């Protein structure tokens, strides 16, 4: 956020790798990925299961840490932070959206949205004001006091988006935000996310394999087997997705 | 019906939770049976004292030996009544006795009132529960004494051969006796005349114990003694006398009930929690079972069985701990003393017996049944489709 020059990217990854120990095997989830994402963009990471897109998202949002390489977000080198510092950093700089919404079932929509504000110094009234504003932005001004189980899937995801938005983060990351929604709601959510970028200047990074997403994002990164596809490979992957989407509206509607 | 192994496997599938729940039940079993064991040990000690064909003769209105006093003439009058059993030497089995409760020093410096019974040698025949197991009977007028097993080693100078100080004098311990676990074992016996001298009691006897020849004689003797206008006496069957003494322990059952009831309900709540969680986490499974065609009853039964198995496991562990624990606690405390307020100390050996465990078993089963029913009912009530969907 200290970076003002347009050309300095909000997210910068350099030679980032991430591997896990699973039993006796070493799993290489991500290998030597480098990329830049400027501010105020709506970006998608795409690829088949196990391609490393979720790992990449976790690294960008400071949930996970790389085995090697550097991750810079909003001027902060995330490698330097320990688990608790990362939590603090996330609270201030990142908003998160999940596939299954992950709202607290025991809290109302308003309280769910206000939850991250508990980590700030804001007083009660200000927390309430901001949470309400965020819910209005996502079009749920009339559902403030509803509990998650009384809301539709689309509405729940919009509450989750409001929760991600409410701290006014530099970066919003979304993991398969349309994965659990029907076609109509999925499009509405994607449109809302795009509007957050172009209307409010938010940077949004999303993992998805929903081909519809390509119509809404500014840029898509394609991954396969832990590597970022570039040049022809990337274009081929891009086209394959478009083809699948265009190849039949029905197929698109059925795809998760 | 779902097989037993299904319930067992489900318990095994969440070992920590099952173990914790069984542990709670086990703890309740230990607490309840330990305390119940203590009280039944006390009652057993008292109720098991005496001979059903013995009579206790005391002054009217006295509720215990220590509070009674009889003149010499009463003894002489009773001694020659008809219907009293006789020994091989043709002596009537009548034991005049004097009871006092002097201070004894415990090994750790405290003091307790111990029942000292002044007797004549015939007492060993009237109280045939009493058996000298070490040493020998005291000789009259030799400042000798024999001590009960529960007394020996609990107080200063009560081991065989040592000098025992009580009352005004010093006594040599020449024998140790048992009495089939009865309260005689908490007594010290000395020569009745020596004791009367030591205690400076104007009336030599506090009571008389005698053995009736037959049951019919006992009733007749009782009537004759009580109706003798010269002395205001009462005669009670010896076993009745001790049974009455044991009634003071009845108020302690309030404590057993309190412990069993409150800890039992608490444990039941805890077990219900576990069972509800089990139902919750197996909603899909229940749906599948119902879809396959298992009846509500079999689902209900299966979950109920699971709760019962937990209770039985808890009981098994708990009863084992209780028995071992009681034994070690008993030997550590060297017997548990009772009856401070009645001026005599009864030393009770803490023991948890099968009858105490039976009560604990019923309690554990009660916990299992009542805690399992709610969750089992909830599981059985689920509609198959609903259960499948929610899973």
């Amino acid at each position: 956020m200290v970076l003002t020059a347009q050309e300095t990217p909000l997210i910068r990854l350099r030679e980032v790798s991430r591997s896990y120990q699973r039993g006796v095997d070493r799993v290489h989830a991500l290998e030597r990925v480098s990329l830049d994402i400027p501010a105020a963009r709506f970006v998608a990471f795409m690829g088949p299961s196990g391609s490393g897109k979720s790992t990449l998202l976790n690294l960008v949002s400071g949930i996970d840490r790389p085995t090697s390489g550097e991750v810079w977000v909003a001027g902060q080198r995330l490698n330097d932070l320990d688990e608790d510092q990362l939590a603090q950093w996330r609270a201030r700089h990142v908003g998160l959206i999940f596939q299954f919404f992950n709202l607290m079932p025991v809290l109302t929509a308003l309280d769910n949205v206000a939850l991250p504000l508990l980590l700030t110094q804001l007083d009660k009234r200000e927390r309430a004001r901001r949470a309400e504003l965020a819910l209005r932005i996502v079009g749920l001004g009339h559902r403030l006091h509803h509990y998650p189980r009384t809301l539709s899937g689309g509405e729940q995801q919009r509450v989750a988006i409001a929760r991600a938005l409410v701290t006014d983060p530099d970066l919003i990351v979304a993991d398969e935000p349309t994965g659990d929604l029907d076609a109509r709601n999925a499009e509405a959510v994607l449109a809302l996310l795009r509007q957050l970028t172009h209307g409010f200047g938010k940077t949004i990074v999303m993992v998805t394999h929903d081909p519809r997403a390509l119509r809404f994002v500014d840029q898509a990164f394609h991954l396969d087997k832990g590597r970022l596809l570039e040049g022809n490979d990337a274009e081929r992957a891009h086209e394959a997705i478009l083809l699948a989407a265009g190849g039949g509206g029905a197929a698109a509607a059925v795809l998760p | 019906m779902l097989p037993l192994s299904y319930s067992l496997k489900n318990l095994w599938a969440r070992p920590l939770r099952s173990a914790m729940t069984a542990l709670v039940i086990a703890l309740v079993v230990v607490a309840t049976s330990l305390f119940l064991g203590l009280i039944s040990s006390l009652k057993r000690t008292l109720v098991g004292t005496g001979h059903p064909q013995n009579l206790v003769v005391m002054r009217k209105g006295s509720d215990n030996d220590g509070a009674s006093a009889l003149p010499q003439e009463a003894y002489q009058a009773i001694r020659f009544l008809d219907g009293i059993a006789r020994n091989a030497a043709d002596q009537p089995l009548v034991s005049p006795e004097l009871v006092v409760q002097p201070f004894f020093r415990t090994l750790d410096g405290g003091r307790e009132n111990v029942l000292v019974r002044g007797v004549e040698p015939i007492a060993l025949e009237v109280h045939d529960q009493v058996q000298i197991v070490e040493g020998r009977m005291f000789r009259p007028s030799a400042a000798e004494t024999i001590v009960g097993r529960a007394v020996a080693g609990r107080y200063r100078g009560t081991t065989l051969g040592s000098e025992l100080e009580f009352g005004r004098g010093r006594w040599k311990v020449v024998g140790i006796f048992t009495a089939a676990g009865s309260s005689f074992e908490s007594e010290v016996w000395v020569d009745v005349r020596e004791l009367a001298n030591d205690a400076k009691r104007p009336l030599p006897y506090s009571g008389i114990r005698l053995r009736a020849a037959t049951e019919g004689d006992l009733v007749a003797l009782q009537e004759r003694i009580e109706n003798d206008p010269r002395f205001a006496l009462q005669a009670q069957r010896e076993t009745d006398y001790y049974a009455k003494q044991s009634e003071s322990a009845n108020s302690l059952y309030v404590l057993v009930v309190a412990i069993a009831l409150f800890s039992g309900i608490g444990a039941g709540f805890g077990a219900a929690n576990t069972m509800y969680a089990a139902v919750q986490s197996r909603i899909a499974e229940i749906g599948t079972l119902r879809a396959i065609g298992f009846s509500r009853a079999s689902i209900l039964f299966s979950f109920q069985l699971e709760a019962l198995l937990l209770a039985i496991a808890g009981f098994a562990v708990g009863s084992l701990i209780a028995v071992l624990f009681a034994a070690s606690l008993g030997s550590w405390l060297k017997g548990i003393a009772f009856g401070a307020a009645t001026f005599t100390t009864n030393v009770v050996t803490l023991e948890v017996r099968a009858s105490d465990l039976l009560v604990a078993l019923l309690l554990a089963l009660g916990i299992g049944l009542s805690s399992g029913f709610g969750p089992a009912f909830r599981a059985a009530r689920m509609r198959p489709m609903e259960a499948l969907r929610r899973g």
Partner: protein
Amino acid sequence: MISWFGLVLANLGRNRLRTALTFGAVALAVMLVVFLLTMPAGLDALLNSIASNTRISVHNKAGIVYSMPYSYARKVRQVEGVAAAVGMTWFGGAYEEEGRVTFPNFAVEAEYVGAVYPDYGIPKEQLEDFRRYRDGAIVGRQTMRKYNWKIGDRITLKSNLWPVALDLRIVGEIPQERAPMLWLQRAYLDEALLAARGRGLEIVGIVWARVEDPERVDQVMQAIDDLFRNSEAETASETEKSFFGNFFGSLKGFVTVILVVTALVALCIVVIAANTASMAVRERHGEIAVLKAIGFSRRRIFAALLAESTLLCTSAGLTGVALAYGFAQALRSFAGWSPALGPLGSFLVTPGVALRGVLLALAVGFISGLLPAWGAARKPVAQSLHEVF
């Protein structure tokens, strides 16, 4: 608006049935612990209440059932340093059921008893009435309550030790919660005995004396025992605390068993609470991961989970204490002084006992929440999220 406390409360409301069951289990168990603790506490309270006074007991060296000549009371009174002394003799009176002594009762010298027990707070007029009425009796509050007696009531006690039954009129109350005893006039018993057997009371069981100067208590006890050395009844003097400590010393084994049972029940609460806490944490795995992902630090997660179990147990503990209070009250009103229990049977939930119950619940909540909360907080966020996505 949501607050920290609100978050904790909301989480407790998540599974109402479980919260209620845990609450009930902990409340009942704490109630039982508190109730059981009143027993040793009753003994401690008795001993502590007399720890600082300068009263001494003078009794036959051989034991309290070995009596002393009545003249000893007068002789003790004359020993230098003794402010007041009263002779007390066990009457062994049974009320209602013949032969069953349901509360301790003594024949005392009416003119001296007030001066020996100024700390009991017996009203002056009542002490005067006690002196004035030959058949007067002063009764401890515990026994007054048990039998629902009022001042002015008339009762009959039949002795199981002396060949008399005495008609008494209650003229005063010892205003002490735990006092079970009844005092009647020695002169009255003496007279009745003279009529019944031609011989008066003649003896005394214990002489209770109050020493003027706390510094001189040992000296006075020595002087009294010296006075009766080599007489027909040698005495042993001891402080009131020592006397009752010894008198009830034989309850030690019983108290140990009570404490063992109490500890077992307390352990029960820990396991029940720990089980609940671990279930609560396990089923919220995903939510906790999400909270961590949106920036809640491990410390905050840990604190919130710990606060949850602590709050639940502590509030249940408070309820348990209240229940114990009610139960003890009810039991006291119908059980009264039980010879088998002595001072253990006062069943009084004192602030100290109540505090121990609440602290136990607090500690249980804290300890039982510790492990699950720590486990949940410690887990790396990426790993838990992995299980969520």
